[in-house]
């Protein structure tokens, strides 16, 4: 059973993303205080930040719901925002740096999300996109 350890609703601004990242970090560290968990929490925060940035930039929602749960396997970060359905590309990878158009200036966000957590789930229900990020962390 997963326990919600942090939840909030924010107005979608990048300043609020920065503040929420710090609050989520504090909640993560409270549940996994051992030093070995720190780099894993850092990776979850990178993915969570990119997901929040995307919601602010693309959803057009008036508010964004954020929840962090701690379960037996680790941490689960969930973000929900109203907007058009988002279907992620079938293949998500870092941009091709040797492509014909030269160095890409975008396309890093989704790849960071994919790379930094153990599972990513995209869902669309009742006009809201929900992205769930799971990061496995041992309690010991």
């Amino acid at each position, binding site marked *: 059973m997963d326990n919600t350890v942090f939840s909030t609703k924010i107005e979608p*601004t*990048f*300043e609020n*993303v*920065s503040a929420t*990242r710090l609050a989520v970090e504090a909640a993560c560290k409270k549940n996994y205080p051992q030093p070995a968990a720190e*780099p894993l929490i*850092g990776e979850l925060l*990178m993915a969570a*930040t*990119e997901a929040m*940035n995307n919601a*602010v*930039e693309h959803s057009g929602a008036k508010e964004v719901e954020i929840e962090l749960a701690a379960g037996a396997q680790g941490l689960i970060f969930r973000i929900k925002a109203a907007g058009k359905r988002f279907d992620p590309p079938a293949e998500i990878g*870092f*941009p091709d*740096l040797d492509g014909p158009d*030269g*160095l*890409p*200036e*975008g396309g*890093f*966000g989704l*790849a*960071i999300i994919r*790379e930094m957590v153990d599972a990513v789930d995209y869902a669309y229900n009742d006009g809201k996109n929900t992205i769930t990020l799971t990061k496995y962390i041992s309690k010991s």
Partner: protein
Amino acid sequence: MKIELTSHSSHIVIVITGEIDMSSSPELRARLLELIHKKPPVLFVDFTSVSYIDSSGIATFVEGLKGMMPYGGRLKFVSIPPKIAEIFGFAKLDKVFEIHGSMDDALRP
């Protein structure tokens, strides 16, 4: 985020402190492009005190590098903390940017 400009052996060093994210990267972009407009042969970025970078920060530096490449300018990163180096490695950006462990290393031609 705080940006300071210092010089080392007559080169410009951009010293960044704090988090490079969506709310701070526009300021970094403006400062970086302003410097690049003057076409310095080399720009150093000191990452020692950078605690976080997101995709907007990465995009800012890619844009900066693309602004320097046409005239042969070089963008050199110095003292990147491990967790930031990890992202650069995943994205293979460590093959694109010149990354050095110290200013002394970075100053070698």
